Every structure is written in C-alpha cells, then in structure tokens.
C-alpha cells in the first residue's frame, strides 16, 4: 500500500473515531457502559 494513501486512511480513521465517540456520547451510550461496569456483571463472570 502506498505510504501517502496509508497516512490518509489513518488520518481519516482518527477523524472518524472522534466523530463516532462524540456521537456515542451524544446518544447516551456512556451511561449504559457506566451502569454495566459499576455493578458486578454476573453473566460476565459465570454466575448469571
């Protein structure tokens, strides 16, 4: 793969990731992650 093309893809992915993260925060996904993570996930540890 051409180096310039790779750099463009990388920069595009970085910009896209920022956009996705912002969109996720705007939609309230952080709250879902947080509520799952601050409680013991019984299913995750083989107890539920």
């Amino acid at each position: 793969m051409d180096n310039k093309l790779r750099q463009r893809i990388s920069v595009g992915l970085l910009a896209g990731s920022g956009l996705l993260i912002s969109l996720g925060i705007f939609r309230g996904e952080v709250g879902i992650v947080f509520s799952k993570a601050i409680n013991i996930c019984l299913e995750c540890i083989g107890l539920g």
Partner: protein
Amino acid sequence: MASLNRRWVQIIAAIGSNGYWPGFRDGAIYQGNLKKVCVPGLNCYSCPGALGSCPIGSLQAVIGSINYTVSFYIIGFLTLTGSIMGRLVCGWLCPFGLIQELFYKIPTPKMRLKGLAANLKYLKYVILAVFVLILPALWVNSAGMGAPAFCKYICPAGTLEGGIPWVLFNASLRSAAGFLFVWKMVLLVLTVTFSILIFRPFCRVICPLGAVYALFAPVSLYRYQIDEHRCTRCGTCVKTCKMDVVAFEKPNDPECIRCGDCIKSCPHGALRSEFFILNNSAPTTDD
C-alpha cells in the same frame, strides 16, 4: 519502543487497569467515573480492582441494551486505539496477554501453531462476529435485552479476574455458582494449560479484541519497517517470533503483536519500528 522493557510496561498496564486495591481488600467494586472509559486491553470490568471498562464487555452491553443495536462510542474507541497502535495493545498493554506469557514461561516442551493449525487464527473473527456482534443484538429476552454472549459463555479473563475473586469474597455469589461457572472454569483451565504449551493461544485463536486490532494492522500509525538493502532474508526474525509471523516478508502481519523480538534479533539491523512513514532514504517494505 523495542528498547523499552516490555515486561515492565505490561506489569504497569496490568496494575493500572486493576489498581483499585480496596476492591480486593473489601470485596467492593470500583464505582467511580473512570469506569465510563475503556481500557485498551481485555480486562474484565467486574474484576474487584478494575478501574476502567472492558471494550468487548462494553460493546456487548450497548449492543444488548434495549435502545441500541450498535455502539458508536465503543466502535469509535476501538477505531481510535486500533488506528494508532494496532496490536501493539496486545503485546504491551493487555493484562490477559501478560498472564498467558507468564504461564508460557513454565519450562515444558513448547508447541507452535503451524500448518493446518495456523488456520485456527481465523476463529477469532468468527467469535467476534457471532458472540460479540450478532448474538447480543439478536438473541434477546422478552424485555428486548441481549446477553453478553462472549463474556457469558467464553471469556476466561472474566472467570479469572472476576468470577474467582467474587466466589472467594462473597458467600451469596458462591452459592450462585452452577453449571455455567463450572463450564467457564473448564475453559479457563484449558486456556492456562494451552498457554503453558503454546505462546498466547487465547490471543491467537479466540480473542475478539485481538481480532478487532488485527483489522487495523495495514493502516495503524505504529508499524514495522524492513530496510530491503540490509535484509538478507536469513530467517532469524522468523525463528525468534513466537507468534509465527514471517517478519521479513510481512512485518505488519495482523498476527504480529509488536513485541519487538524480531527487531532485537535481526543481526543486520534491517527491522525497525516507527510512527508514520516519513522520507525513507532506503527502499522499505511494510505490507
């Protein structure tokens, strides 16, 4: 990067991911704001010491929630991490990778995943698609919520970091341990056993997070380069690589965890690592 002591970075990353010591002392889970953010490696957020969230657990949590079938927040995080570091995360920052490497240090005859067995590397992409993306979205209960299928039925990191400590700490949770816990303990024992014989078998065959980061291998900013003027194709790097990557042909192979062993071993100094690719004077290959 290769000059840094990788083992110490791994230990610091493992402690940093699980640095909530009151959790181990008091049997209480951390409930602070850091849990809103994911750690880059596979690390169960139900571990008593966990300070951040597991990206694979979080991805399933959002996909399995009532409101959403896709997580922009976690996909964005994985894209950010993957496009900067790729599988450098696996080699340097993942606590469960470190655990497997420590078991591999037990002196026994070692096995390599070669020939037909090498194709097992594709299984992790199937697991990512089926257990992380499809089942949590489609296999839902009457309320419309999907279970975190990978965590529930497969993940040995959750059993080791969350299941075992909580069963030891909490009598009521101990009484809840049934067939599923036994099943996950069997998977954990198998993972540990294979880790003694094979270098990082879980990362190579099962890990959906490794599969995600592997997708970024062709474009991640941190990458390896070969100086074609210096490389004699002697094969020293291939013999050194525990992930069975042919570094002089494909230095940025999706299976490469950027441990740096090939760079250290090259007798001609033909391999190097770098961020971005700027003004190479010598012909290089990095595909």
